[in-house]
């Protein structure tokens, strides 16, 4: 873990432009994955709509910045707040009506889609043209000429989310979330405030995804509904957890570290075969679901425990 961290910190000082962009992609997926991990991996509420939170984060900071001159740092915090509220709203509605499993996933998906359509068609929200972030190179406005600083900031975000998960997993909140995932009914009988905890998990998870959303907007300088609210963002939040191991601390990090380079590799190897990289993506999902349900990290942990007992 420490070696990995050290490598991640040193990385930008050795990497070229191309490698840097891959590094950012890895971290972005890791951040999304970890945010999903809180709500779905730990609390067991399966989200298929993390794009909703990501997009709300990206749009809140961007519109506030472009139209009102609010620093994206502040916009990021406001976006996180907005996404947390959205999470609580989705959660409250769903849990009030006892939605679970597939139906809960469908509700989260529907919310993301509604937001996409809404942003696509509302002039006040910049419509389908999206938002172009003007480049100013002022750190107070979350802009840097040096990509390495962007990278390190994102690394810091990933570390923050991971540390948060690490801390809660040893405390009441995290232990109770796992209890809720495994059996909500039993958790209730033991006095766990199930609704409150699930909503809290959704709020934190939404806020974390929104943070990644703001980063995305500032780093790439352009967002539109088709990129930040699309279901492929939601899938990008899920896949690293599946590959690495959901409900584990380092699983999603490992997952992101494997998938992104693999994608890049297949992209460059089979440049002219349109779609092959996505076929590989699909095969990867299928193979892991079928043969390695706990993910790589989960399988490792299980093997270790198996040896001990």
């Amino acid at each position, binding site marked *: 873990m420490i070696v990995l961290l050290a490598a991640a910190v040193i990385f930008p000082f050795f990497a070229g432009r191309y490698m840097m962009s891959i590094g950012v992609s890895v971290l972005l997926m890791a951040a999304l994955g970890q945010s999903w991990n809180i709500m779905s991996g730990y609390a067991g509420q399966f989200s298929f709509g993390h794009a909703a939170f990501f997009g709300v984060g990206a749009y809140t900071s961007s519109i506030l910045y472009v139209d009102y001159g609010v620093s994206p740092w502040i916009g990021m915090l406001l976006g996180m707040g907005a996404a947390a509220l959205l999470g609580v709203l989705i959660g409250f*509605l769903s849990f009030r009506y006892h939605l679970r*499993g*597939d139906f809960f996933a469908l509700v989260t998906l529907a919310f993301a889609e509604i937001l996409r359509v809404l942003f696509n068609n509302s002039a006040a929200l910049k419509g389908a043209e999206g938002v172009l972030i003007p480049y100013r190179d002022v750190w107070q406005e979350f802009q840097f000429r040096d990509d390495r600083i962007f990278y390190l900031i994102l690394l810091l975000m990933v570390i923050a989310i991971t540390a948060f998960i690490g801390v809660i997993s040893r405390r009441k909140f995290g232990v109770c979330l796992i209890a809720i995932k495994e059996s909500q009914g039993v958790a209730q009988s033991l006095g766990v405030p199930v609704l409150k905890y699930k909503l809290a998990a959704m709020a934190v998870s939404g806020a974390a995804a929104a943070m990644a959303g703001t980063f995305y907007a500032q780093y790439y300088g352009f967002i539109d509904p088709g990129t930040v609210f699309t279901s492929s963002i939601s899938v990008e939040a899920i896949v690293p957890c599946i590959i690495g191991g959901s409900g584990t601390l380092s699983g999603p990090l490992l997952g992101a570290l494997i998938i992104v380079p693999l994608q890049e590799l297949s992209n460059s190897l089979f440049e002219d075969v349109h779609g092959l990289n996505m076929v590989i993506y*699909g095969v990867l999902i299928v193979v892991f679901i*079928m043969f390695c349900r706990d993910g790589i990290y989960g399988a490792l942990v299980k093997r270790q425990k198996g040896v001990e007992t």
Partner: protein
Amino acid sequence: MNIYVLQAFLDGVLMGGIYALAALGLSLIFGVLKITNFAHGAMMTMGMYAVYAISVGMGIGPYAALPLAMAMMFGLGFLIQRVLINSIDHAPAYNQLLLTLGVAYILENVLLMVFTPNYRTLTVDAFQKAIHIGPLTVAPARLIMFAVVLAVTAGFYMLLYKTRVGRSIRASAQDEEGARLMGIHVKRIRAAAFGLGAVCTGIAGGLLTPVMSIYPTLGESFQLKCFVIAVLGGMGNLWGAFLSGIFIGVIESLSGYFLGGTWSEMLIYGAFILILLVRPTGIFGRGNRRES
């Protein structure tokens, strides 16, 4: 009544037929296998390209290509269930959901590799020329499309209610354990149900081939709508799915006329959330609801 409204209504019913057939397949799969099939849109696209490929390859008309395409779709669905889904039978719901998502990526992008992202058209001019029915205009291809939808649905009804396989499917949907006790080979029935679901969806896609330009992600745009319709009709309630398919087609067309296309989309998704929350068994009541 305003003639444009009437025209919108007719267009809605005709398109609703496609929704109905696709959602019927989704609902059947959910009813028997208790799986929300995220590969449904991709299977619809498979149907489109199956008709396209057979028609071009064998030099026959798109409608003549339908039977063979149906057989292919059944084989595809049967295999997907037997080889992939079946092996994680009692995994948590979201694992099955993700598995079908992986399948969707594979199907869609294999099509992309084979057929490129270019638009393909297979329209037959004679069927495209609008004809007039009183004050209304309609392309014959759309009428044929709707007629085939009705015929396939009728055939589907006969299969489900008049044959042994159909009775076994319905029994398995209602009570898997009971079906097993009655000596029904549930595993094979589940694969058959997935195959039949694939046929319905594939035909719904295939019927669009002579009507619009196709591309590998076209089916995906129907997927969420299929979810909406199947939930509205009550997941697992086949006739509910069919009726709400027509219903959504009409609502979409009429609200598109009155409110504009995008707001009609909002309306439908909004209604979707409302139904999921308030009445997840669907407006026709009898649907299954999965607890997990």
